[in-house]
């Protein structure tokens, strides 16, 4: 069977999932099974088929599992968002359309994605510019004390970090392709640790500085960790030096510790993480959200309470019991409603997607492609880890989205671009003749 036919077959489970999911929500909500759930399933299947046709026409050799895995995540996300708020789900579906258009555009415009290398400095400066936008007066705004959003009055709101992460990965893939040999061979060994020459060490320090800056400027450990972790992963793959990773992590830990104790908002997040069930529960910006997220997970148990059973607002009021259920806390809602097994299944789908991304990286025939695929896959995996880890109290909770599942236009669009780039790398790697 050809790769594309396998991809087409892979979309069937996703469509069944979305139909069954909507049916479940409808039954719960009105006790009737209307054919609207079938309509939703059909529309979603139509969107998936459109995406599939684009891939079939442009990338015949690309990985056949990536798109169906994303479709499964997106369909599940749509059901969850629908269950939380029907209006948001409609908007989310519209963002899917926009995302798919941008997905097709990326594939067609960057058919030879290696030309991105030519614009690497433009890309990195635009990305860095995007990151600081939320701090600009009049444009940026803070949500829960972190500066993650940009509001263009009357037009739209977006989260630049979602796009910046792709730009930074493209830049670093290109940069490391050029310098990876020098970073390893040109270094001196001090105390048995290979240090790169100062000249080339600079960019790594810059990355570290960038991560710290994100914390200082945006007050956000999550994004900081996501960028830094993704870039460190690329550095490791490019050089094979575990010492760089260890030094990098130590430097990050040191910086994070210092800033965590000196920036009030970051410190509060850490305190909430350490003591969610104490007096902090009652304080503004305290541990109310994380504590109730954990209570929601406990209520879900092994098999979950079923779609629509999670209590999100205090009955009889509009007061949130679980703040931001459609974005930050969506993993808690998932665990509450489909239980440990459902949540684990979601994590395994993410892991399978990351595995396909790494597979593309291994199969790629040039370093830039490999590093690009590794970077995109790693930053995607770390994003999942940061938000799920925040909700499950592995690390302090910060507001990044759960890719393809959380509500949010920026997240959907950016991750579709990420998917397009991975498919481009994969198609080139798997094509029988070198173009």
């Amino acid at each position, binding site marked *: 069977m050809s790769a594309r036919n396998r991809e087409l077959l892979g979309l069937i489970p996703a469509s069944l999932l979305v139909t069954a999911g909507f049916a479940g929500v409808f039954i*719960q909500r009105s*006790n009737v099974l209307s054919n609207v759930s079938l309509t939703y399933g059909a529309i979603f299947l139509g969107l998936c088929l459109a995406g599939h046709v684009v891939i079939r026409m442009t990338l015949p050799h690309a990985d056949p599992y990536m798109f169906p895995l994303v479709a499964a995540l997106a369909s599940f996300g749509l059901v969850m968002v629908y269950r939380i708020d029907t209006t948001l789900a409609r908007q989310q579906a519209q963002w899917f359309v926009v995302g798919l258009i941008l997905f097709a555009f990326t594939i067609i415009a960057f058919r030879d994605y290696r030309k991105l290398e030519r614009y690497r400095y433009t890309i990195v400066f635009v990305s860095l510019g995007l990151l600081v936008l939320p701090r600009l007066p009049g444009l940026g705004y803070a949500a829960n004390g972190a500066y993650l959003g940009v509001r263009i009055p009357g037009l739209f709101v977006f989260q630049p970090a979602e796009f910046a992460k792709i730009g930074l990965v493209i830049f670093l893939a290109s940069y490391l392709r050029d310098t990876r040999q020098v970073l390893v061979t040109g270094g001196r060994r001090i105390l048995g640790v290979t240090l790169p020459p100062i000249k080339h060490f600079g960019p790594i320090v810059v990355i570290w500085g960038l991560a710290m800056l994100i914390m200082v400027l945006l007050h956000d450990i999550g994004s900081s960790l996501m960028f830094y972790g993704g870039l460190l*992963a690329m550095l*490791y*793959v*490019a050089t*094979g030096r575990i010492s760089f990773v260890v030094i990098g992590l130590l430097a990050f830990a040191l910086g994070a510790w210092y800033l965590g104790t000196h920036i009030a908002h970051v410190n509060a997040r850490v305190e909430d993480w350490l003591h969610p*069930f104490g007096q902090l*529960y009652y304080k503004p910006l305290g541990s109310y959200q994380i*504590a109730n997220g*954990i*209570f*929601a*997970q*406990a*209520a*879900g*148990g*092994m098999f979950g*309470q*079923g779609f629509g*059973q999670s*209590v999100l*607002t*205090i*009955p*009889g*009021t509009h007061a949130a*019991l679980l703040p931001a259920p459609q974005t930050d806390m969506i993993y808690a809602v998932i*665990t509450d409603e489909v*239980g*440990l097994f459902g*949540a*684990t299944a979601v*994590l395994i789908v*993410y*892991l399978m997607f*990351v*595995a396909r991304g*790494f597979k593309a*990286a*291994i199969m790629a025939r040039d*370093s830039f492609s*490999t*590093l690009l695929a*590794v970077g995109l896959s*790693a930053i995607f*995996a770390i994003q*999942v*880890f940061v938000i*799920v*880890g925040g909700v*499950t*109290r*592995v690390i302090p909770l910060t507001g990044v989205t759960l890719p393809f599942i959380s509500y949010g236009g920026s997240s959907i669009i950016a991750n579709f671009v990420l998917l397009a780039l991975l498919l481009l790398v994969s198609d080139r790697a798997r094509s029988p003749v070198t173009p």
Partner: protein
Amino acid sequence: MTSQIVRLFGLIVVLFALLIFFTTRWTVIDASKLDNSSLNRLTLIQELKIKRGRILADDGTVLARSVPAGGGTWKRSYPTGPLFAQAVGFSNLAQGSAAGLELSDGSYTRGLQTGLNSIFGQLTPTRVGDDVYTTLDPKAQQVAVQQLGGQVGSVVALDPRTGAIKVMYANPSYDDNNPTAAGPNVTTFNRSTQAGYPPGSTFKVVTATAALDSGAYTPNSTVNGNSPVTISGVPLSNDGNQSWGNVDLTTALTYSINTVWAQVAEHLGRATMTNYMQRFGFYSKPPLDYPPDELNISRPFAPDGRAYPPGSPNEDIGRIGIGQGGLLVTPLQMAMVAAAVANGGKLMVPHMTARVVNTDGVTVKTITPSVYNQVMKPSTAQELTQMMRNVVEEGTGTAAQLGGISVAGKTGTASIGAPGSNLTEPWFIGFAPIGDPKVAVAVTVEKTQGGFGGTVAAPIAKNVIQTLLSEGQ
């Protein structure tokens, strides 16, 4: 770079395993601890979403029901308010407090014990509990309230054949729609089951049971009834210091002669007296379907307030035999004494829950009458009944007479407060009709100025008995 990528993937697998481990920790390992956390409102909210079943009187009068409280939650409403507040109690989930049948029958009204609801409860949008039909009789309850007429006191009436509680009312009561409201004549304290009163001469029924059933006496045995006699080294007088000479026990009960019964109790001894008290249910919590915290144990207490262990050598068994000597009882316990005699010596387990009916109208549980204890021989019960009949026909309890229906009873007038004070605790216990008793009752009024059981309590009992019998009890 392949090996680095494989190792990197290994690291990511480890990180995701950490996520799954933490999810497991919250959903399984720590789940019950988290569910019970004081900060966690989910368990309470789930409870609030259950539409609990109603609690109804024996004639179908609604005593408790659920009304919508917004957001898919429910709260309890009590249409009869203070009339049944003590029996029905209240349930305020939001404040985590509950009392009465609302507490003890909560598993029925929440529908947790009955088949389908517990299995499919998760699937149905609203969980609905079962209805609880009680044995309570609104009409007789209303009569009890009227007859007490605002006096502090208690009325308990039951069917001696089954143990079904028909009336349980005490003044003051409270509005169970608002149980925390304070006021001068408001209390959630249920005197019928929680108070401790000296039973006075009504206890002579217990002493007489021990005397006859043990074989030491017959109704015709004579005892010297002169006054005073020394009991436990302290002189004891009859009412008005009247000396009766040698009298038989029937006369001694009819005219409630203290010196006779105190001597009988002393003669029987602590072991026999304690044995019969325990048979009636003294020294243990009454087996009522009611929260244990709201049930008081009837037993003698030392002057320092500590309970005597059963058969303690320190207790004044002579005075206990006439319902004094530190003996403190609940009205419920004294109603059980009357019921035991009425039912041929067989004391039935008192209960208020009659049956549980699910939303389809199917009775899912019926409370069948069960025997608590064979307190005395049927012949003893018969002899006692005749003695108690004399009390009502010609003795201290004539105010309980019913036209055409024979009543057996015993009055009591316990003196309380400091010696020489005029404060009394009037009592009446009894049952009717003789031959086929359908109603047993205990009535007491708290701290009257010199009121007698025969004049204060007996008329109340008479009206409650009359109402219940007219309803075909």
